[in-house]
């Protein structure tokens, strides 16, 4: 029972939505819109799960004084204070919540994003080794594209490098991407089909 009811729901709704894709009729679109309204109403409740998880994990850490438990205090204070700021003073421009968002959240996000540039440099330094013929091709292609992307490269090697970059991006790169995308598409359909037909049930918890 614990398995079969959820499975029945998945299968029924799954086929209904497959139907929606092919049926443009008003009845089908109305059903879809009605369902979407419910999704909108239901999804906020998920937040509770998230908050519960954070509180439980971190309070357990504080309780057991695991190494670095002090950080958990910071996490909990930050979470509750931000939430409180939002409830108490609102979330419009000019409130503490917005201040936190603009002066804490946004710069920290941007900093993490900026790390990417450094990591790309160190990763490419370590990874690009002409170990084999394929690796050499990859290495050369990477260097050409990098040069083609910046004005200095074009000034150094002429406009031809631009065309080569364009060709690399548009022909071999796109071809391989399409190949992968095709596989991904089929893989998705196959996985969905496995779920729809009840063959794949791991996502319901546990094994077969």
């Amino acid at each position, binding site marked *: 029972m614990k398995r079969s009811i959820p499975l029945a729901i998945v299968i029924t709704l799954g086929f209904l939505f497959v139907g929606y894709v092919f049926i443009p009729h008003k009845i089908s679109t109305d059903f879809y819109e009605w369902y979407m309204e419910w999704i*909108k109403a239901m999804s906020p409740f998920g937040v509770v799960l998230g908050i519960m998880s954070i509180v439980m994990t971190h309070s357990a850490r504080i309780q057991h004084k695991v190494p670095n438990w002090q950080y958990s205090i910071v996490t909990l204070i930050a979470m509750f204070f931000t939430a409180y700021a939002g409830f108490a003073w609102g979330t419009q*421009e000019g409130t503490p919540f917005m201040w936190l*968002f*603009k002066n804490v959240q*946004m*710069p920290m*996000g*941007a900093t993490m*994003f900026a790390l*990417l*540039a*450094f990591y*790309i*440099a*160190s990763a*490419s*330094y*370590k990874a*690009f*080794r*002409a*170990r084999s013929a394929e690796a050499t091709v990859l*290495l050369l292609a*990477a*260097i050409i594209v*990098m*040069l083609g*992307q*910046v*004005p*200095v*490269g*074009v*000034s150094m090697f002429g*406009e031809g490098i*631009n065309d080569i970059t*364009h060709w690399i*991006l*548009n022909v071999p*790169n*796109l071809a391989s*991407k*399409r190949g992968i*995308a095709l596989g991904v598409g089929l893989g998705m359909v196959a996985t969905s089909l496995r779920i729809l037909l009840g063959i794949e049930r791991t996502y319901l918890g546990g094994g077969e």
Partner: protein
Amino acid sequence: MNIFERLQMLDRRWIFLVVAVAIIVPLIIPFNSKTYTTEPTEKLYRIIDSFAPGPDEKPIEKDRALLLVFTHDASTMPELFPMEIAILRHCFARNIKVFTLTFLPSAAPIMDYAINTVKEEFPHVKSGEHYVNFGYKIGALMLPIILGMGEDISEAVDIDAEGRKLSSLPIMKNIKNYNEMNLIMDFSGSSAGGAWIVYARSKFGANVGAGVTAVMAADEYPYLQTGQLTGMLAGLKGAAEYEKLVEVFALKKREFSRELLKDPEYDNAITNPDIPYKFKQARIGMNAQSVAHIMIIVFILIGNIGYFITKYKEKQQG
């Protein structure tokens, strides 16, 4: 351990340091470099330019408009903001009707900032006549608005950021739906254009363009090739290209031509004090990118030389 072996084991923090220097120095000391334009950018420029009123046409009467959608927050501003102001500069210089819209609360200030930054240079430009800021609309309204604009923009958007009824604004004359507001530019740090391609393009035939960060640009190429995206600005490079196009054509009020771009007189923009910093920031940024790319290439080469020397030695020993 010789120097090459050491280089093989180099602590990544040294690399971080060199990259930081390579990025900061060109930003502080500007130098000229040539900007080469590419097709996706040119295509976008040309379609936007085709929205400009003719020499004997009143701008108000023009039945073409452009919508800029800001789908990003401050974290991706360095790459996307120069694009936005380059396009706005194009629109204001050529009297192209332009609208701005966002579904992200954090993008609303960026939108205002972009408009005001460009407007300072064009005193004749008026809100409600040359441009309208639709403002921030809540995310839940995204689909209804995208679909609604296919019928009637004034009705779907209703009021602009200044609280005015859209239908009462002179700019809306001759602008009804996607037939007139024919191009939507979506600026985004992740996947740009998605909903617009699915709904505005396939249902109403609107053209969709994208402004994306360089990391995500590779994701958009397939859409570009199939034509689902009319044009694309990819990262800082795209912004730099657009900056140049605006300077060469839009400000001089002439039409696009690839031949004119070859003229070297447009290559000294970065050190030209007459051009405000804000309209060449992407090109200055490209200098930093140039140096950083060269730096990384040098690193890769050094790494490889070290690799081969170590391998050679091992062979000799072994």
